């Protein structure tokens, strides 16, 4: 009950005073009222890695690289900074001991998935990981969902979607896309893909569109 009331009060007061102050790595950082931790950190020049985040799309929380440790009323919690709303007086740690350990294991897992991404390579170098002990997937699609969400929220075409669940989840253009020309061929999903493998993988799966060469 107290947390709700405080939430409401802080939401109300945030409307009145636009600026909230929080502490990231013990540095005072101002933030707007509706900002997430990641946005506040980026504005202040602090780097938190993130793969499935894009300014124009709502946060998804799938890549889990942006996790940070927050301390509130003496209790610490691990949250995804791309979605957690900024609160007054919050203590945020981007490289605490716990986060370093967890992120190290996470990067090792990514190295078995798709090791050629900039962010992953930089993190691997930082944590001193040369090789991964896990079984290499060579799947290359990390299911960050950027292409799906971009097409749904920004282009509003919904030409591409998730199919399946769990370990057999895939990203696919709807079958029979030639019936309904949802895809307008803007190819912006190919640029947004963090692994860069999206085009060549799915160039074959799409039926040829009836358009001029």
């Amino acid at each position, binding site marked *: 009950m107290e947390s709700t009331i405080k939430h*409401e009060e802080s939401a109300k007061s945030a409307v009145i005073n636009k600026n909230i102050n929080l502490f990231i790595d013990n540095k005072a950082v101002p933030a707007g009222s509706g900002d997430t931790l990641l946005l506040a950190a980026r504005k202040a020049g602090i780097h938190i890695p993130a793969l499935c985040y894009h300014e124009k799309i709502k946060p998804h*929380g*799938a890549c*889990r690289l942006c996790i940070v440790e927050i301390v509130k009323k003496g209790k610490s919690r691990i949250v995804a900074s791309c979605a957690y709303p900024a609160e007054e007086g919050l203590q945020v740690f981007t490289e605490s001991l716990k986060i370093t350990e967890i992120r190290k294991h*996470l990067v090792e*897992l990514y190295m078995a998935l798709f090791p050629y991404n900039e962010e992953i390579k930089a993190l691997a170098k930082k944590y001193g990981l040369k090789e991964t002990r896990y*079984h290499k997937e060579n799947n290359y699609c990390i299911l960050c969902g950027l292409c799906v969400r971009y097409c749904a929220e920004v282009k509003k075409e919904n030409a591409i979607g998730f199919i399946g669940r769990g*370990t057999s989840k895939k990203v696919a253009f709807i079958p029979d896309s030639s019936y309904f020309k949802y895809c307008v061929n803007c190819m912006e999903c190919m640029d947004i893909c963090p692994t860069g493998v999206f085009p060549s993988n799915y160039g074959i799966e799409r039926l040829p569109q009836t358009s001029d060469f």
Partner: protein
Amino acid sequence: MSEKEIKKISGLEDLVKISEKLKSLMEGKTVISICSGTGCKAYSSDDVHGKIVEELQKKIKESKTNADNIVIKKTGCHGYCERGPIMVIHPGQTCYLGVKPEDAPDIVESAINEKVVEKLLYKDENGSSIEKENDIPFYKHQQRIIFDCNAKIDPYSIDDYIMIGGYQALAKALKEMPPDKVLSEVKKSNLRGRGGGGFATGLKWETTKNAAGDTKYVIVNADEGDPGAYMDRSILEGNPHSVLEGLIIAAYTIGANHGYIYVRQEYPFAVKSIENAIENAREYGLLGKNIMNSGFDFDVKVHRGAGAFVSGESSALMAAVEGNVGEPRLKYIHTAVSGLWSKPTNLNNVETYANIPHIINNGAEWFRSTGTPGSSGTKIFSLVGKVNNTGLVEVPMGVTLRDIIYKIGGGIKGGKKFKAVQTGGPSGGVIPEALLDLPVDFDELYKAGSMMGSGGMIVMDESDCMVNVAHYFIKFLADESCGKCVPCREGLRQLLYIYERIINGQGQVEDLKLLEDLCILLENASLCALGGTAQNIVVTTLKYFRQEYGAHIYYKACPAMVCKPLIRYEISSDKCSGCTRCVKVCPVDAISGKPKEAHAIDQSLCIKCGACMEECPEKYSAIAKSTGIFEYEKEKEAVFADKGQ
């Protein structure tokens, strides 16, 4: 008991009137109640019912009795599922177990003459029979507050529920208690969520009540996805009105006018039962506009699931009710503040709602008098696996595991040795014998690494391999994971690879460290509680049964003789009599042997299905399993000396 014109209930007086009328009708009659829960239905209790009705008609024709003296009733689950179909004769409370259709004439005969059928009674170790239901050891050690009603009422009749005092709590709340008073009563009772989370129900209601907005929702989570747990189904099938009553009281307290009940598709009888209950309640004016003339409107809709365990998670459930894919979402603003269609929503488990009428009727102090200080009230567990008495048990919080398994469960089947009990479903872990004296409540099991969860308790004995059990749960979770976040999806995938390597005999020493690292990742970096608790089973099996992992990795042996790639079926040439029965039944023709000569299994062809061992006559018992590669025995000391274990 149908009336031409169904008059809407307007308050306590109407309820008492209906109850008195039914009680007086039942005065002096013998009631034969037959358990028709899904478990007993599978034992063909419907056939028993049909036969009893037939017999009764016969006796009425023969004028041996009046049509009015005996009533036959189909009730919900009684709980003692091992010995179904179960029948209880009222008012004597005579309990018959394992009833078959052929017993119908004897039963009807003795019901008319007020005798008992000896052979159907429960027999204890000394062979003496126990007649009354509550004296049977299985029931004696329980405290059945919620479950007791199941045995007394027909779930398709709302009048039965009113007869035992149903809907009086609703009348009391609507007429005598403003919402704040109901809320403070629930808060004082210290009722905690029975779905597994154990969050204080009163606090959740309060948050939802105080959240901003006029439109609010209440939801019943009947998605019981835990394999091996079926308590919620039994409550929904046997006593749906108790859940409805609790739901309406909750809606009244919070100020919600719409409710949803999410039932999983694998429970068709539960769906039918709750839909019928809703219809009956609407007829009596207990759902809809102006309930009991109090000015409060409320209606409810049933939403069926479609086969996804992850949809039982609260934010995923709300996504599914909205019509989207049932994936969990980031929950940094509680669903109590922003849930279904971004409106404040209260979500509780079936059993939590079933407790509410009792709290309102008897008071918070009464509720707190049962259980432990931190966890009040009773809890229903589904005790299954290798116990003698499988079924649903309801005990007060704080009873030890040992009491539940041995006193109520009757010990291990077949006299084998107890190994571990798995609690809490896929989110829980295993508890070994050394910790059997732990009391069962929300907090104690959590300290041991497991959790009480929704109440599943699976008992395992020496013939169960812990590595196999962990592999089973990880496979289940990998199949049911939604696949959204990387740690859960990829972490579970990698865990599966490692387990498959270990079970296939290709385990390496570094595998155990890999398992532990993945567990740290899963626990902290997952998006929802499915990934966040997936590591419990791995961590507990590693902690308490590390030597089994060692046997699989170092000796390529499975001590419990379960993991197929590591075991062999062998025919002992001394015992084999050459009857060729196993030769005929082998699906891959791996057994060679002429009649009257000792047979032999070709290990390169054998697929280890076990058909030969089942077929071999008991007097010979010539086929046995063996495991282990004996060359490794020599390297054992060297390896152990190296690793310092």
